[in-house]
């Protein structure tokens, strides 16, 4: 029996959990907003209090989304070794607590982003972002073109993951050729980037033509989202947790 191919990260990110939960039903904009608020407060107040609260929020989100540990991508062993060695050094130097907080916060924030991604189809992201950005129109921000660019970029990201997979596979198939020295490595890097950008350029031409064929740059309709009870609960939790973190931070807890 062969080893399962769990380490293929491209096959598990950007994918929505096949479930029907309150978080799946919530508006993509609420999830983005909650994520943004929690992230900002955690960056401003990286304390044990925020770590604890964020862990609670993340675990709750994890359970509500009915996610399983198997959805989390596996990291290569080298990552754990580097982390362990650094932790050991920090412990020896008396900075273990600070080290743990900073690493754990990064992990929890990434997990929160992952929970949002697990419950939000990419197609819902751009319309929600357009609504969140819409107040910026008053100060002259070209929200329409930003939203369209986001929508197309989101559409293209999975295509790029596929292309990168092919690129890596093609290099493995050629094998044999060792890259020796800085100059050769530099040349190989330029080769790979040129291939990626050539594919990018082709797609850009095709998508541009495709837009023209549909009458050019459209006005993105900004539709007021219908908020569910889940949205309200989600936003109350996010803003509530942030308020507690800020209060605790100011009081120096």
């Amino acid at each position, binding site marked *: 029996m062969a080893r399962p191919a769990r380490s293929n990260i491209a096959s598990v990110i950007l994918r929505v959990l096949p479930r029907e939960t309150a978080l799946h039903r919530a508006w993509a904009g609420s999830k983005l907003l909650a994520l943004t608020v929690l992230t900002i407060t955690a960056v401003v107040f990286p304390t044990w209090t925020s770590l604890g609260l964020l862990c609670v929020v993340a675990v709750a989100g994890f359970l509500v989304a009915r996610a399983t540990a198997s959805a989390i991508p596996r*990291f290569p062993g080298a990552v754990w070794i580097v982390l362990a060695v650094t932790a050991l050094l*920090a412990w020896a130097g008396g900075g273990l607590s600070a080290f743990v907080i900073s690493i754990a916060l990064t992990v929890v924030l990434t997990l929160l982003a992952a929970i949002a991604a697990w419950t939000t189809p990419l197609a819902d992201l751009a319309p929600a972002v357009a609504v969140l950005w819409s107040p910026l129109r008053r100060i002259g921000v070209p929200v329409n073109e930003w939203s369209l660019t986001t929508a*197309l970029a989101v559409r293209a990201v999975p295509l790029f993951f596929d292309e990168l997979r092919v690129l890596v596979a093609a290099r493995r198939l050629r094998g044999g050729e060792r890259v020796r020295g800085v100059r050769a490595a530099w040349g190989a890097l330029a080769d790979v980037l040129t291939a990626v950008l050539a594919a990018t350029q082709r797609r850009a031409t095709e998508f*541009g033509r495709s837009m023209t064929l549909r009458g050019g740059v459209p006005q993105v309709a900004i539709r007021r989202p219908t908020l569910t009870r889940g949205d309200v609960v989600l936003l109350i939790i996010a803003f509530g947790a942030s308020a507690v973190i800020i209060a605790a931070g100011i009081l120096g807890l």
Partner: protein
Amino acid sequence: MTSIGPGSGALRAREIAAAAMLAAASVTVVTIGALLPRTGALELLAMIPLAVIADRFRIRALIAAIAAAAVTCFLIGGVTAGLVVIASGMVGGVVGAAHRRGRGAWTMAAISAVLAPIAALAANALLLLLPVTRTLAIEAVSGTVSGFARFLSLFPGLGPVARGFTDLAATVGTSWWLWVVVGMLAAVPSAVFITWRLLTAILARLDWVSVDDPLESAHLADSENAVGPLPVELHGVLVQHPGQALPALDGVDLRVEAGEFVVIEGPNGSGKSTLALVLAGLAINGGRVERPRGVGLGAVGGTALLTQRAEVGALGARLVDDILWGVDDPTSVDVDDLLDVVGLPNMRDRATASLSGGQLQRLALAAALARRPSLLIADEATAMVDAAGRAELTDLLAALPQRLGMAVVHISHNAADGQRADRVVRMRDGRVEFDRAGPACARRASMAEFAARALDTAGSVDSPLVRRMPQEMRDRRPATVAPLLRVRSAAYVHALGTPWEHRALTGVELDLGPGDGLLITGENGSGKTTLAWMLAGLLRPTDGSCELDGRPVADRIGSVALAFQHARLQLQKRTVREDILSAAGRAARSKHRDDNAFAEHWLETVGLPAGLADRGIDALSGGQQRRVAIAGILASRPRVLVLDEPFAGLDPAARGDLVATLLAVRDETKLAIAVVSHDLAGLEELCPRVLQLQNGSPA
């Protein structure tokens, strides 16, 4: 190089598309970097696509790209990824803008000299404003450094070094701002310099000059007009593409009226596609085009153009998003009905990324019909659909004039399509060879019947291929010689052990011997491509075995050659010659002293002129790139070759050439060939055996 189009105003379609694609490239790089910390250096490369935007497009496009990339990265990779992309956009943007003005090393040094203090100042201001974060960072860094010092002090003789590190750790707490300054003074110039050098190397090879789309310019000029494209009359139209000796169209007269089904035929290069563009509003260099009112490209009641590569232009993430993309009044469109008519029933919420080429062409037709055009131009728009589906779609196109009163101009390689036409126009060398009433005129009455039938059967797509296959091809004759490649009850499960677990293959058995030819076919999603990757060893079977000479192929990747559908990604060197030599490997070309003759020999083998050897990869057409990729593979002298959809996007003549090449090589070198293809036509001799996959199992 100056900026395209108007120097101010909203972004054009071409600019938005470029900004979005380059943003997506950055997002991909940053995300992989964030999720695989081992490849953290990868994040530096995120600057390159953003620098390209600044180099070739307006700053406005760069800002839109940064905004799009930041929000996408934030969701996928978290806050660090989002911040990395914003910083990359700033550095890449400045470098790209300087590169665009042709500036060199001194300017880059000056940029670094300005950017580094700004970055240091900004970082210090942030740390000053965020005391909690600052304290934490200081503790973590000084802790790790003094921990390292204690580790060093364990070794005798390293005492002074250890004390040095201890002192260093102490300075983090007292003069953290200095550390930030030193860090930025090191990081910013390195980032600027690397970005600049890479950008220069890449842009020298890639031709991003075609940043403007002539059809878009024509459309913008037309957009003020009221819509009314029919009847359209062309009088002595001349079109000269820049940089080409002969005009693409030379004195073309043509009239298209409402309710007509016009078929345009002619060989490659006869000007058919240019004629389609002129009907869609492209500016002409001579003669005149008369329409009652504007072309209305993509407008309701205007003109719709389905291009040759209609399968690559799906804009929406889901089918419904794509059909409604840019439609002013979504409530006026019955999406389910449209999907039914083009043969994609009940697929409204499917992701466009999951569709096959043929299905995407059907989707493009649905999106065109959603605007109820008066004039529908289909330029080889059914090439990716299999033979039965193509007949079905042509029936549908032929029925539209009768059913909805629109004019349909159908450009086709397929001579049989002329049978249904009201008029047949043949093009040759940029001129109209003849323009006469088609057979269908006499059978107007039967057309209505035809229409009804086409719309009835449109629902049943991609009927099992096996039904259309000759009986003898279905027989899976055992290989006559001892097999090289042996697959036994092989299975593959994607994302095994995750919530997205998906069984792609089950119980596959196959033998491939020297000189064998096997066709692997099946519907979209039947596991064809997964099997191709498994045969090449890129995927290890999750159950069963896939062995070459009795050893798992996955243990020796490269021993089975694989030609990918997307040839450009397979080509990894700057020129055709370098790529063929690199693909061949040292062992295969050691017998030849002369590298030039070696590369040229393989170019000729795949039917390309030897003169192509010095060309840059990106100066080739898509069809040529696929042939060069195959040339490189053949030069490596594989014993087994797997080709994934090698005929996608090739016209019938090019397809015939490629089959003949493969056949000759197979018979000469006893190469074992497995072809993955959805289209069976003309492969009987190359692939006497067929493996039909259905839901991942042999049917």
